[in-house]
């Protein structure tokens, strides 16, 4: 089996981390394992990071160890997405259309 190459995946919404972090947290561990095994770095825009770290500590998003994920290297924080970029705008439009 060949080793996958380093790559990045953009996560434009905090919903993925929240869904993975709810309750027993096994999905979050699986997400981390998936990222490290496949040498993928998840890139989150600043607002996603702020939403997660700004949540009260008693809630799921407030307990997601996003800072330790950043320290471990499988998550990194970027500048905000440029929605005037046609590729980004197209992906976001398709995602919203899929969700609706």
């Amino acid at each position, binding site marked *: 089996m060949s080793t996958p190459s380093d790559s990045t995946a953009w996560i434009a919404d905090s919903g993925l981390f929240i869904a993975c972090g*709810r309750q027993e947290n096994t999905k979050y561990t699986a997400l981390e394992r998936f990222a490290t095994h496949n040498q993928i770095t998840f890139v989150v825009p600043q607002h996603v990071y702020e939403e*997660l770290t700004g949540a*009260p500590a008693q809630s799921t*998003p407030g307990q997601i160890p996003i800072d330790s994920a950043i320290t471990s290297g499988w998550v990194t924080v970027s500048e905000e997405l440029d929605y005037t970029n046609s590729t980004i705008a197209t992906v976001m439009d398709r995602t919203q259309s899929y969700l609706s």
Partner: protein
Amino acid sequence: MSQAIGASERAINRLLSVAHVLEEPRLARLYTYILREDKATIDTITADLETPRTTVYADTGTLVDLGLLTRDESQKTHTYTATPIRLTTNLDGDTYTITPTLIEAVGRTSNDRDLAFVVERYGLGKLAAAVTYAVLYVDGEMTERVAARELDLQPAVGIAVLHALREVIQDMRTHDPYFDQIRNARTEAANRDS
């Protein structure tokens, strides 16, 4: 006349019963468990809810006394059935119909940190409102982010609450006979805007 008095008594007693259950997540959880199962015995409740038998005896007794459970004593092993709840409150034209779906949401606050957080921080009314938005979210008529904003919750908290309520809605849609009477959040928003 006596019939009218009986109806008034019944209405007030039911109001108090529902209020009692809304304050006690353990009772709420037991009530909706039996509603979903149709019939349950002390043994099945003890095993499925992983609750001490003594507690199950006490709680089923309480719910029977509140008129929310019926105990069938015709067989050696007693069985319990749940009476579906439908309670409509009307305050100066603002109405909300409490149904077993809200009771289920309350029951889950005992082991769901996000639902517990909402009730602790904002009160039961916020949870009830969130249920109405969760119906739209689960039906694909509103995104979780828009619903979180309408509920005036911190975005990440709102999303987590809607994720929690998605499971409630999916479970109760087939078990709550009054599910269709849950207030529609769109109506609520329209009333607020008018």
